């Protein structure tokens, strides 16, 4: 009986179905909430996500060859780079035509710099050719094959043509391959010569050292956080300032201070020599290597470990430990079985912070890293600011981003990301 009377939709006071009315109310609420977060959202989109997307795009973008040499690329499409023969006159004529335009736009040297990343000598080949081709008359000066080879012997050899052919598509995987010590060859992907392989080594080193730094931070930070959390408020506040004080000091100052401490004529070595523990002639090498980088970075990143640990430990009631002991647990068991598991979210949060900060670290390894303590970020910086190979820099950055996301996913699988707490 009641079924028949209640089968129609429930109506709100104004007669519209309650479901729709509710949805509308919720939508307004959502829109209002969205409007409130909009400033931040737009800010993040413009200043953070868009640049990252742009950077990722640069790692595959390769429009310059096609755009600068459109006719040459078209003429080359029928040429077989494996044939061992130079392209025919049509290609050279197309090149003369393209270069003529490119020189007027000053694009030929840009292309030269781009191709020089793949083929040593391309830079001067294009710069020199541009100067001469400018004066050529396309109608009367042909045939161009001999003229080009006479201009620069590079045009009479296969590598430049193979390189143009390989890098003519609009998008390339070349930068990514380069970033993992491979390269595009005529027959597909090949390994770079051994004396040029560096990125794989640096990725491994970056991961390894970041791991060591994270572990050192846990080892050093845990007892400090525990003391801070268990002391009376007034004392712990005072000690907290000691943790924060280096945090507020300039990064460069702290790094340079480590230089003064660790160098061979530095404070630590001087003290050891004075104590007679090491001889004056064989002072320890503690800086400009991995050791120096790990020490300095552990010190710099320590607050990022202590703070989340501290705020998590503060919420663990002291009574739990006492209860465990009153039930017969030893000090160790009480700590390990009762206290430690509750402090894990703090360790997790601190570790993620420290690890992610350290794999992207740049300035400290640059100053104290020497040759064995540098990170992948130092190479990224080099390619962005010095060699101007932004495509390769972007590819390295993209791989680093991918690795971080992978590790984050792995962490979520093993520990669970809900288990991370920055406080309370």
């Amino acid at each position, binding site marked *: 009986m009641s079924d028949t009377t209640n089968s129609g939709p429930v109506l709100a006071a104004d007669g519209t179905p309650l479901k729709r009315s509710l949805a509308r109310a919720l939508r307004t609420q959502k829109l209002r909430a969205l409007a409130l977060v909009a400033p931040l959202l737009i800010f993040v989109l413009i200043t953070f996500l868009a640049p990252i997307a742009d950077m990722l795009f640069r790692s595959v973008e390769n429009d310059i060859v096609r755009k600068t040499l459109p006719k040459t690329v078209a003429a080359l499409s029928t040429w077989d780079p494996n044939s061992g023969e130079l392209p025919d006159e049509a290609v050279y004529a197309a090149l003369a035509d393209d270069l003529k335009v490119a020189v007027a736009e000053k694009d030929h040297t840009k292309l030269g710099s781009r191709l020089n990343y793949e083929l*040593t000598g391309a830079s*001067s080949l294009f710069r020199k050719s541009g100067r001469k081709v400018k004066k050529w008359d396309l109608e009367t000066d042909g045939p161009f094959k001999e003229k080009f080879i006479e201009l620069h012997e590079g045009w009479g050899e296969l590598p430049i043509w193979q390189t143009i052919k390989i890098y003519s598509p609009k998008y390339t995987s070349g930068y990514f391959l380069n970033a993992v010590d491979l390269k595009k060859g005529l027959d597909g992907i090949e390994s770079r010569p051994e004396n040029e392989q*560096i990125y794989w*080594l640096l990725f491994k080193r970056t991961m390894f050292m970041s791991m060591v730094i994270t572990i050192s931070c846990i080892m050093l930070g845990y007892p400090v956080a525990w003391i801070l959390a268990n002391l009376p408020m007034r004392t712990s506040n005072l000690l907290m300032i000691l943790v924060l004080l280096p945090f507020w000091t300039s990064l460069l100052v702290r790094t340079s201070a480590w230089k003064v401490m660790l160098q061979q004529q530095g404070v630590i070595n001087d003290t050891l020599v004075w104590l007679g523990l090491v001889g004056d002639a064989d002072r320890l090498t503690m800086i*400009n290597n991995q050791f120096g980088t790990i020490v300095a970075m552990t010190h710099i990143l320590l607050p990022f470990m202590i703070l989340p640990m501290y705020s998590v430990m503060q919420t663990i009631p002291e009574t739990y430990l006492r209860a465990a002991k009153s039930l017969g647990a030893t000090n160790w068991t009480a700590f390990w079985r009762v206290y430690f598991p509750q402090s894990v979210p703090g360790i997790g949060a601190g570790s993620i912070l420290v690890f992610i900060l350290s794999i992207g670290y740049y300035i400290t390894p*640059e100053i104290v890293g020497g040759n064995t303590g540098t990170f992948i970020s130092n*190479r990224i910086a080099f390619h962005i600011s010095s060699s*101007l190979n932004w495509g390769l820099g972007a590819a390295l950055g993209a791989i680093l981003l991918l690795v971080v996301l992978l590790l984050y996913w792995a962490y979520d699988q093993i520990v669970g990301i809900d288990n991370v707490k920055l406080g309370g």
Partner: protein
Amino acid sequence: MKLTTTLVVSSAMALATGFANAADMADEMTIVSWGGAYTDSQQNAYHTPYSEMTGVDIINDASSNEAVAKLRAMNEAGNVTWDVVDVVAADAMRLCDEGLALEIDFDTQLAAAPDGTSATDDFGDLLVSDCFIPQIVYSTTFGYRTDMVGDTPPTDICAVFDLETYPGKRSLEKRPINNMEWALLCDGVAKADVYDVLETPEGQERALAKLDTIKDSVIWWSAGADTPQLLADEEVIMGSTYNGRLFSLIEEQNQPVAMLWDAQVYDLDGWIIPAGLSPEREARALDYIMFATDTQRLADQAKYISYGPARASSAPLVGKHAELGIDMAPHMPTDPNNAKNTFLYNYEFWADYRDDIDAKFQAWLAK
């Protein structure tokens, strides 16, 4: 005909006097340089007199070490905020190649020497790029601690590779340029053949093998201030850096350090004007360049820092240090006593081989 002449004369006069057509020029400019003592020397020799003469506000920006990347980013964003930029010659070539710097017509856009020699002849071989107006000649050379070398102070570049006579650490720049050349020189390659050898993969291997003999004794620097600091701290027995840095270490800070003037590598530093400036700003920048690179101004800069003026006509005008009162000529890399055995950096070579050799060098370094 007469009209054209009048026009040429009047515009030349307008350019020379600077303020005649000041209405068409920007009254504020941002000049980018290296900061520190170097910018100070430019402030004293160029900026202050120019501001006094024209009333232009000059803003200094110490971003030269990142100038190439930043100019490229500014250019892509279509908003170039710099008016004149101080860069080393290799960077200037790169900027010119990338179309980021303005091409200069040296004879019309730069001042002639007082005796009428054209700017092209006055600068001579130092005009290495169409966009680059050389300002100073500097050299990358070695300084050594006089109290750590015993009775046999080094006189030869190969002392760097001689661990027996000169044990201890040395500091070298963390890049292949210069180090590869020195390594080959000390491996028995004649000076004239260095770049021919370095072109070949075997030559590159040879240079790295030579560097490998001292690899464990090297501290690698990336900032020009590193070597002076390392020398002052007795961390290294000798190290390479720019000669001006060593000058201030020796003469201003009185450290027991001496210069090793052998096979020092000449390099150039100078101005470029970014491409894509508005006409008013470009006119101002060109006007500034015309003033700041004339014979007297280049000689003036040498009063404040020990880098040689790039114009031949400036050399005789180099006087005493503005504060220390010592003769600057003997401290110039261009002084005949210092320039007995110099090495000229090959820009074309490094523009081509930089990416390739750098990859090999860094791979060798990381191992």
